[in-house]
């Protein structure tokens, strides 16, 4: 019997992914988080995700856009089961090979505890068999899902999605409901959903979602119709804003703290989005402007600023900080203006690091405090109140206001003469110049606008935390802002918000934790994987801007023809110069 090509391909891959997750300690660490008590922990979800996903992929086989996919439940299940079987076998072999040796000297996470979790606490012998059986079963389910009808597939995915959501957002949900009896009904004492509540959520999601799906088409038609549509859109936006205003009052301090982080990253993401997404300048040193904002505010407002301590009010310091940021934008922007895109990336990265290293150095310690940083930065006075990080439920509103300002600036810029010039420059710099756009000016305006928005974030950050240290400004921050922008969708304002919510909110930021504290150790691994995955599969992001999605996927058939021709551009350019 010959084994299907895709089974041979995905089976071992699934096994390697499972072994890899075990070897880096992910499974064991995630096992500490209960999702459905006591049946399923996050660790087992992670462990069984590969057989399910790759089983689905094996059942899908060749992807051909032009032909209708063949959907067949038993066939898919068999393929999926084989993938699961191979994956389980590979994983078991990995455990058996490593178990006899004490490798913890080199590989601290390959140890008995890992094996214990992987074998469902049943010992290597019986546990291995269980693992293989479970993996096969889950693989079969994944494969069968591909074969199932549209309604079933959507239903299953929707139910799983909502259960996951409720389990992951336990903290938020309990904060909002805040009635002990109901909370206890939904969630178990040790964390995680109760089994029955999970089932109820799944059933509700299936049923309600099915009813809603029919109406959705109707709804979106209505939203498109101009008269009623605009009323509908405005009322939806209104409801959205209202929810945003109410939400911080419902949730507790921890969640508000998290929301502030998310909002700060939305703010910086919006700024970077102007530079990278709209003007097409890949800036990897964006954190430098955040640092200018934070340190500028610290020096101007803190009474403990080492040399120069005017101890201004935050609101007075803000315009000065904005001017500093604008100057920094020009200083960084000018030397890189003539550089090729990728050189620009690495040079801006260099600038970011130079700023951090200088702030840290003995040389500038008399001004910026070096490793000690600057402390006792006062909060922000609003009327009689002084708002700082100790009152996150108020601080979040301030942050939201600045996010709204930044979003407004981005939106207006995008649809203006300047925004069109950026778009033209991003598409073809030489031609943009030839039709009369001063690329120097356009680039500097992009850098300065981006820098000022980052300085807002910096000013808010230092007032919130009360202290600034250089380690809040390393290159990691720049990269994570970039990931937020890319995952959300370059050039898209909604995309940045979604990206920040998902990444910073759930996984956590560079120095802060997200909702899933278990992810802390692995969040950067996941960031890297997400970045690669997005670039390979969906470079336009989750909520792409209109222009960008055309650029990267668009009406593919038509665009292909166009791209083919564009491929010849290079040679023609060379010819053009000589003819």
């Amino acid at each position, binding site marked *: 019997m010959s084994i299907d090509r895709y089974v041979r391909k995905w089976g071992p891959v699934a096994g390697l992914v499972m072994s890899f997750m075990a070897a880096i300690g992910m499974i064991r660490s995630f096992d500490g988080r209960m999702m459905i008590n006591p049946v399923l922990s996050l660790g087992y979800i992670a462990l069984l995700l590969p057989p399910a996903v790759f089983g689905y992929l094996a059942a899908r086989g060749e992807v051909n856009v032009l032909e209708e996919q063949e959907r067949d439940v038993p066939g898919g299940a068999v393929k999926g089961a084989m993938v699961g079987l191979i994956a389980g076998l590979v994983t078991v072999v990995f455990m058996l090979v490593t178990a006899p040796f004490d490798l913890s000297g080199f590989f601290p996470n390959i140890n008995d505890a890992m094996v214990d979790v992987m074998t469902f606490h049943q010992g290597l012998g019986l546990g291995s068999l269980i693992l293989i059986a479970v993996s096969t079963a889950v693989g079969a389910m994944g494969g069968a899902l591909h074969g199932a009808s549209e309604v079933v597939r959507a239903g299953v995915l929707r139910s799983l999605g909502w259960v996951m959501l409720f389990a992951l957002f336990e903290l938020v949900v309990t904060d909002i409901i805040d009635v002990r009896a109901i909370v206890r009904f939904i969630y178990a004492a040790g964390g995680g959903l109760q089994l029955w509540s999970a089932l109820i959520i799944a059933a509700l999601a299936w049923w309600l979602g099915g009813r809603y799906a029919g109406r959705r088409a109707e709804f979106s038609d209505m939203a498109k119709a101009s008269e009623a549509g605009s009323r509908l859109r405005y009322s939806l936006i209104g409801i959205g804003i209202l929810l945003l205003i109410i939400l911080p009052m419902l949730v507790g301090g921890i969640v508000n703290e998290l929301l502030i982080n998310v909002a700060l990253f939305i703010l910086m993401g919006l700024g970077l989005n102007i530079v990278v997404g709209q003007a097409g300048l890949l800036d990897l040193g964006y954190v430098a402007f955040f640092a200018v904002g934070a340190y500028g505010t610290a020096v101007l407002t803190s009474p403990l600023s080492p040399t120069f301590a005017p101890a201004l009010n935050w609101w007075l310091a803000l315009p000065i900080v904005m001017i500093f940021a604008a100057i920094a934008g020009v200083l960084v922007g000018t030397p890189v203006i003539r550089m090729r895109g990728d*050189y620009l990336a690495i040079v801006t990265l260099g600038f970011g690091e130079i700023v951090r290293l*200088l702030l840290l150095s003995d*040389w500038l310690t008399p001004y910026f405090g070096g490793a000690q940083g600057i402390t006792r930065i006062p909060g922000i006075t609003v009327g009689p109140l002084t708002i700082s990080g100790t009152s996150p439920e108020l601080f979040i509103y301030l942050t939201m206001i600045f996010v709204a300002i930044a979003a407004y600036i981005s939106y207006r810029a995008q649809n203006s003469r300047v925004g069109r010039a950026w778009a033209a420059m991003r598409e073809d710099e030489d031609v943009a110049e030839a039709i009369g756009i001063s690329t120097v000016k356009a680039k500097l305006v992009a850098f300065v606008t981006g820098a000022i928005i980052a300085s807002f974030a910096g000013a808010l950050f230092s007032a919130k935390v009360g202290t600034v240290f250089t380690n809040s400004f390393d290159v990691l921050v720049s990269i994570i802002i970039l990931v937020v922008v890319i995952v959300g969708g370059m050039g898209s304002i909604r995309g940045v918000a979604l990206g920040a919510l998902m990444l910073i909110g759930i996984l956590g930021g560079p120095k802060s934790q997200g909702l899933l504290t278990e992810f802390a150790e692995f969040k950067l691994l996941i960031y*890297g994987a997400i970045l690669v995955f997005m670039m390979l599969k969906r470079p336009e992001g989750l909520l792409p801007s209109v222009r960008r999605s055309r650029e990267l996927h668009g009406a593919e058939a038509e665009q292909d023809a166009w791209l083919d021709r564009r491929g010849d551009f290079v040679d023609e350019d060379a010819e053009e110069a000589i003819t």
Partner: protein
Amino acid sequence: MSTDLAPEVAKPRRFKFNWVDSFLWFVRVAALIAITIGVVGSFQNFAAGEGPSATAWRDLIISSITTGSMYGLIALGYSMVYGVLGFINFAHGEVFMSGTMVGLISATMPFNNGFWDSSPFISIVVVLLVAMITSTLVAIVIERVAYRPLRGAPRLIPLITSIGVSFFVQYAFAGLFGVATRNYPPSPPGLAADLSIFGITLPISGTRALVIAVAVVSMIGLWYFVTKTKTGSAMRAVAEDKEIAGLMGIDVDKTIVTTFAVGGAMAGVAGLMWALLFRGVDFLTGFLPGIKAFTAAVLGGIGNLPGAMLGGVLLGLFEGVGPLLVLGGLGIPGVSQLKDAVAFAALVLVLIFRPTGLLGERLGSEDRV
């Protein structure tokens, strides 16, 4: 068309006030003045008998050259990939780190049973091989999984992907090997001492001499490979024009894999050098040397192999000697903290003074415009 010469990138213009040019001239002049004042200041200090002694300066220069030759070897990988595919493989630093990290296993075991001290050369060769093989494999896997599907995509996409790969590999190694810094065993006693040839003791330790020798040998080997072998000329052809090379019967994919493999192997050699020079290794080890090696590649002229080596050595000198010589002469305290800042400043200044590097870029026709 009759010829495929590409237009020059630079656009010389008649003098007219222009903000960018004026700014760049200001930076150039300011940098030159600062460097001159710094160097003169250092010489005055030296003449006055202050600051480091002559021996200290000599040792500093020698150690800078050794570090620099290591940067040069890593830079070869950047340079070759940039020459062939036209993007900065940000993850190359992690390729280097992976070899260093896995090589540690092959060094610890012989050290524990005494073999390291009794047969130092065999042990070091084993570490070298392990590091080279690991780095090569990691480079090939990265190419296959992350870069090959992106062939022909807009050039910033592979760059962003490589940033993602870089993070992924870093934290995968953090998960596998833990986050603590581990140390290679100290250099075998025979190597740690100053080198003596024919009874003359040279002011350089055996380790450093070995490192320089390995770098020189690798460079010559690579040079031979690229210019004299068939695979090497295929690589150059693919760098010049992928499409035409493909039409000429060259297997483009295979050649690109070879490029990554060779770059990875050189990074593995650099891994051994790191092990001998610095000993400590953790999952972040690749990041800074990676960026510095890229700087070295740009400094020498990207795509230019001797340029990468020269750029490496020069960058080693800039960051090793520069802080003390220039910043020390300017009277700035705590100069050794500013080593990395000097390296980054060197990158910026190189690109302002001479964007095509010291020995000139060698890029394919597709990458020049």
